[in-house]
């Protein structure tokens, strides 16, 4: 304890030092997030504003000039959407949906996992059997079913993905929290007369959450893929506000007729973004794994 505690930033930097792929991934993620946030200011066109679209501008190859005077660098789709703008906005939806769904879903999972570990008894039985039930069911099928029941839309997709995200986190957190519960500091806290809620939030949560933080990026890339799949299948986001998956689906119809740009560009962005998140997630996981840590 003689050395000064490294700051959070220093610890974070240490994880990535000497791992150029992971650093590139980190830059990639930052870039995509920035593009998503600032899309309304930097995109040449607002592809969700029906007034700015014209089917007479439809299916133009990359580099064409639209009726509104905009030069479409990546071409347009059948309805006259500029693909570059549509990808920027689509990125926004894809990232938003994935982040919200995974954060909320994981939050619910963590709370349920902690409750199960702390309360034991019937509370644990109910929660863990629900987890088993959820995990035994193919995720994408469950999401399809929910969307068929509730209809489509961004909010419903987020809801369906939340339902998909919580269970594995609950199981993970419960396992860690169970072993924490046996430690002396919890007994000490109990003897000090702290409430269950306080013990859970002040002691159990901070000591059990790190494995969840490690799998979080992987969950996010999974959710991006899931959202793209649902939208590709036509049950995801509204057709007038396409996400990356829906853009790919739209272009899919035109691949045989040589209008490749409609789905290739959104596809590339989707692949790149998921790749970036995954290399970063891989690095975080390796770092958290005590067997691999010595090799750092």
């Amino acid at each position, binding site marked *: 304890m003689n050395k000064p505690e490294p700051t959070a930033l220093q610890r974070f930097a240490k994880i990535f030092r000497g791992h150029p792929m992971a650093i590139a991934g980190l830059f990639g993620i930052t870039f995509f997030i920035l593009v998503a946030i600032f899309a309304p200011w930097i995109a040449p066109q607002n592809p969700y504003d029906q007034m700015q679209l014209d089917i*007479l501008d439809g299916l133009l190859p990359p580099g064409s000039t639209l009726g509104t005077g905009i030069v479409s660098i990546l071409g347009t789709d059948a309805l*006259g959407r500029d693909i570059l703008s549509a990808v920027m906005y689509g990125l926004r939806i894809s990232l938003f949906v994935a982040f919200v769904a995974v954060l909320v879903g994981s939050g619910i999972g963590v709370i349920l996992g902690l409750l199960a570990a702390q309360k034991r008894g019937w509370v644990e039985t109910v929660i863990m059997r629900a987890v088993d039930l959820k995990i035994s069911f193919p995720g994408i099928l469950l999401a399809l079913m929910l969307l068929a029941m509730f209809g489509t839309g961004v909010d419903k997709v987020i809801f369906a993905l939340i339902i998909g995200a919580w269970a594995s986190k609950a199981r993970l957190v419960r396992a860690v929290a169970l072993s924490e519960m046996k430690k002396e500091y919890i007994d000490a806290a109990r003897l000090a007369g702290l409430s269950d809620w306080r013990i859970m939030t002040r002691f159990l949560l901070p000591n059990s959450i790190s494995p969840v933080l490690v799998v979080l990026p992987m969950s996010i890339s999974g959710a991006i893929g899931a959202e793209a799949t649902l939208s590709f299948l*036509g049950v995801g986001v509204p057709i007038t506000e396409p996400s990356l998956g829906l853009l790919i689906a739209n272009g899919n119809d035109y691949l045989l007729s040589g209008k490749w740009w409609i789905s290739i560009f959104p596809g590339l962005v989707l692949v790149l973004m998921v790749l970036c998140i995954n290399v970063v997630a891989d690095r975080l996981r390796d770092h958290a794994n005590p067997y691999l840590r010595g090799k750092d």
Partner: protein
Amino acid sequence: MKTTLSLLALAATVALPSVASADTLRMAFSSAPRSIDPYPFGGAPTASLKEHVFEALVAADDSPLLAEGWKWTSPTTLEVKLRDGIKFHNGADLTARDVVYSACRMAYKVDGKRNLLTSSMGPIADVVAVDDLTVRFETKAPYPLWVQKMKFLSILTASDADVPAGPIKFDAEGDCGIAAYPTRSDFEKGDAAIGTGPFTMVSFDKSGEAELARFDGYWGEKSDWEKVEVRTIGNAGARLAGLFAGDFDLIENPTTEDLAALEANDDYAFTSMPSWRSIFLVMDVNPEGAKGVTAEDGSAPLANPLVRQAMSLAINRQAIADRLFGGNATVANQFSPSYRAGAPEMPALEYDPVKAKELLAEAGYPNGFSVDFAAPADRYANGARVAQAVTQYLSRVGIQVNLKTQPWSVFAGQRKERELGLFLYGWGHPQGPAQMISFAFASRDKALGLGSSNYSNYASPEFDAAIKAWAVETDQAKADGYVADAMKAVMTDLPGIPLYYQHSIWAHRSDLEVKGRQDERTNAAMVSKK
């Protein structure tokens, strides 16, 4: 690179269409026929398959087929003369008794359910075999439409062992003193699938597969094809790939996006035919307001005819036909295709967004209003894209459109519950313009079968009077006049907005000659060798 190219060339040679037999026609349907039993089901795929085996007194275009001619001897009596010398697949001669038997089977409940097509029998009270080649239809009320509806009465043979000898007495329940009709599975196994059509049935499977063989005793023009194989491939891409791989000689409904790929390839061609399917918008014109439609002042914008005219003026139909269909759609000027028999002459519908804005302002909506627009995503060719194009056009004149595309099953349920204020719909009515608008826009009248699909809540005394006069008019010229009156009324009031008429497209080997049909049906008889 060179190796890759030669490998590709090699692959191409290996994959050249392996022609199974020069006399076999292999067709891929886009959706599966439900049965070979001609009565329980409607729908183009079922009708397509059935027409190979069974024929009716009247052809799809209302011309005589098994009938030689007919005459209304009184407003409630129709006498039909049958063609002489027609043979069933089992060698039996076609007689009036077969027609009575078929009418009985049509009225009979298959699997305990009323047949979908039975409703077309309407007020038919009796069917009598006057002599071997004369049938008399007697109706409870004047029913001039029966002449067109006879196309649904597929003629079966009464030479089945279970049919007692002697005359058959028709009754509306379809009992007719017949101990047991052949069941649906008897038809599907082939035992009962005996008609007068150009092909005999060899096998049928519910997955949408069927095999047919040429009937050499057919009375009409004989087909080029000894054998016909039907498969069903729901996915358009897979269907086209099957054509390119040589698995099929002809496929239904390639997507309009794929036509460029077909044009670029000398081995394949496509045939496009304006069809009877008309695509239009339906609006709930209820003066108390419509679901999902809101105006700032709380009024009901869609109830105002000026607003509906403005919406019609706002849409560039030509751009939709050219851009989204590559020209394979015809711009609409009335609800039923203008090129159909019985469709009145109507002026073209203008595209004038400036005037549309003026009309909206005049109607009291200078800032537009907000409307939910529902469209089925998986029902009509390019349906989702058309809905988006319409959304663009309506947005541009200031209407805030919230487009909701849904799977057909969800959409159809909401439509049935009348939860849709504005929706995209398509209708390919086999019986002509008057039938279509009478179902869609007449005030509800269960007894006369009018307005069963009037989701617009449109009620116009003028329109209703014309439709009611038409429904009982046996004189064709007068009937056409009533249809014209009705169409004019509905095109002035616009409880819906016609958009375009869909074309049916078949992709096929370029050495085949295909005569496209307007009723979206696919039949081996329309395909010949060049």
